[in-house]
C-alpha cells in the first residue's frame, strides 16, 4: 500500500498571534511551529497502517525551508520519505493544486491529511485535492481500516456518525480518535536524518490574496457574582445581557 500524508507547518496552538508591516504580515517572532494538530492524527494512523498492513508512507508539505524540522519529525514518527513543495502555502486552492500535481499518477492508495489546518481553519484542501484527482473524499474521518481495495471509515456528522465503505484510492481529512498522537523515539530521530527529503518547485498560483489582518477588540472585564447568589445571574443574563 502507498500512503501520502499531507502535513501543514503551523504556529503552536498556544502561540501569541501578532502581525507586523502595518498588519500585512503574520509575525513569526518567537512563534514555535508544529505539525498541524489534525495532520498529526493522519500521520499517526498512516504509521499504524504501515505497521499492521505494510505500507510506504510519504509525507508532503507545501512550505518554505523553515518547515523542514516538522518534516523531519514526521519522518522520525515513521514516514519513509518526504517531499517539500518549495512555496509559501498561500491559499487552500494553491496547496491543493500542489498536492494533486504531485500525487497524480503515483498510485497512492490513500491520501490523508488533517480535517483542517489550525491556522486558517479552512478545512477544504482534502475535498479540493479529491476533486482535482477525480477521487472520493471524506472528512472528518474518526476511524479508518483498510481491507484489500476497500476502506471502512467512521465519519462524524452533526450529532452523530456515519459508517461508510468506500473504494480506494480516496482522500481523507482526519481527526481524533483515528489514532493517538505519536512521539518520535531516539531510533526514529536518528533514522529520520538520512531518510530522503525531496524539494520540488510549485506549480500554478493562488486565487486569493490577503490585504491585511486585524486582531479582535479586547474583551471587557468579567462581572463576578458571589456563589451564594448564583441565581441572580439568570436575571442578569435576561435583563442586562439579553440572551435569555
Amino acid at each position: 500500500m502507498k500512503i501520502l500524508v499531507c502535513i501543514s507547518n503551523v504556529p503552536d496552538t498556544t502561540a501569541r498571534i501578532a502581525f507586523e508591516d502595518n498588519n500585512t504580515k503574520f509575525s513569526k517572532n518567537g512563534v514555535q511551529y508544529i505539525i498541524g494538530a489534525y495532520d498529526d492524527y493522519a500521520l499517526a494512523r498512516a504509521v499504524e497502517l504501515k505497521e499492521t498492513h505494510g505500507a510506504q508512507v510519504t509525507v508532503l508539505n507545501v512550505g518554505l525551508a523553515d518547515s523542514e524540522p516538522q518534516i523531519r519529525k514526521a519522518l522520525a514518527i515513521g514516514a519513509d520519505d518526504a517531499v517539500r513543495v518549495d512555496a509559501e502555502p498561500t491559499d487552500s486552492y494553491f496547496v491543493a493544486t500542489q498536492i494533486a500535481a504531485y500525487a497524480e499518477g503515483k498510485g497512492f492508495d490513500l491520501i490523508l491529511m488533517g480535517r483542517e489546518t489550525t491556522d486558517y481553519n479552512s478545512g477544504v484542501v482534502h475535498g479540493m485535492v479529491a476533486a482535482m484527482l477525480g477521487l472520493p473524499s471524506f472528512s472528518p474521518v474518526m476511524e479508518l481500516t483498510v481491507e484489500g481495495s476497500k476502506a471502512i471509515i467512521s465519519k462524524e456528522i452533526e450529532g452523530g456518525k456515519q459508517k461508510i465503505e468506500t473504494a480506494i484510492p480516496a482522500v481523507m481529512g482526519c481527526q481524533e480518535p483515528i489514532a493517538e498522537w505519536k512521539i518520535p523515539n531516539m531510533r526514529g530521530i536518528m533514522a529520520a536524518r538520512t531518510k530522503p527529503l525531496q524539494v520540488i518547485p510549485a506549480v500554478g498560483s493562488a486565487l486569493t490574496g490577503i490585504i491585511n489582518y486585524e486582531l479582535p477588540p479586547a474583551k471587557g472585564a468579567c462581572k463576578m457574582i458571589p456563589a451564594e447568589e448564583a441565581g441572580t445571574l439568570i436575571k442578569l443574563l435576561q435583563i442586562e445581557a439579553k440572551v435569555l
Partner: protein
Amino acid sequence: MSILIFTELADGKFKKSSLEAISYGSKIDGSAPVVLAVGTADETSLAEAGQYGASKVLFSSQEQENIMVYSQALLKAIETTGAKVIVSVKSALADAVMARAAGTLKAALIGNVTELPDTTNGFVVKNSIFSGKAFAKTEMKSEVKFLQIKKNVVEASPEGGNATVENFNFAADAMGSSIIETQKASGQLSLPEADIVVSGGRGMKGPEHWQPLLDLAQALGAATGCSKPVSDLDWRPHHEHVGQTGVKVAPNLYIACGISGAIQHLAGVNASKVIVVINKDPEAPFFKAADYGIVGDVFEVLPKLTEAAKAL
C-alpha cells in the same frame, strides 16, 4: 450577480444557519439568490426560503448524506443557474461539498466569512482566522467565488413571501462509496446550531455527575458540550467536544462548568456573544475570557441556576 446558496436540512427543514446563509446571500448586491437544498424536506418548509430573500429553491431529494452526490448536485446547480457567487455556512458537511465543487471549477474559496463582501474595488471578504484569534481581509480573484460564512454573524429574520420550489435532478455517482450505517442522536438540540450551550470539563468529576448540568441545559433549552479530555475519557460523546480540535460554537450564551479555559478550548468558543464561567479556582484562565463569572463549586452553583432558570 447570480448567487447560489448551498443549504443544509435537518428534520425536514432548513437549519437556522442555512437561513442565515440565505439572508447573507440576499444582501450581497440586493439580487434574490437561488437556493439548493439536498436531503429530505417537505415543500412548505422549503418555500420558507423566500422569507429570507430567496427567489427559488432547487430541491434534490436524497435519502443519504453522501458528499460525492451532494457536491455533484452543487456543481449541476451552478451550471444551471450560472451562479458566480456560491454561499454556504461553515460546517463539516459544507466544507466537504463546497471544497469538491471549488476544486472542480478551479475557484477561490474562503471560509469563516464574518461580513458582507466589499465590492467597491474587486471582491474583498473579511474572515476569521487562527480559530477566532484574528481576522483577515482577503481579496478573491477567480471569476467564480465560494464563501462559507461563520454561524451567527448575520441576523435571519423572516419577511417577504414564499419561494418557488423546483425538483432538481442530476446524474448522481457515489464514486464507489456507500453509507452502511448512520447513527444520530435523536431529539437532541444540535450543538453547532444552538443559541445556548452548557458545557462541562474535568471539574465535573465523572460521567455519573452530569445530571446537574443536563438539568440546567434542559431548563434553558440549551445544547450540551464538553472539553476535550471529557470526550477523550468517554465521559461524553465525541460530537460534544468543543474547541480548536472539536466543534467551534458561536451561541448567544456559552456556560462553562468546571473547564479551566485552556487556549485550545477558548479557540472553539470565542465567537460566543456572552460567556459565563463557573469554576472553583479564582485563577482559572477562563475568567479572563468571560463576561460573567462565579467562583464556586459547580455542584452547588448549578442547582441554583437551574432553579432560577425554571422560574423565568
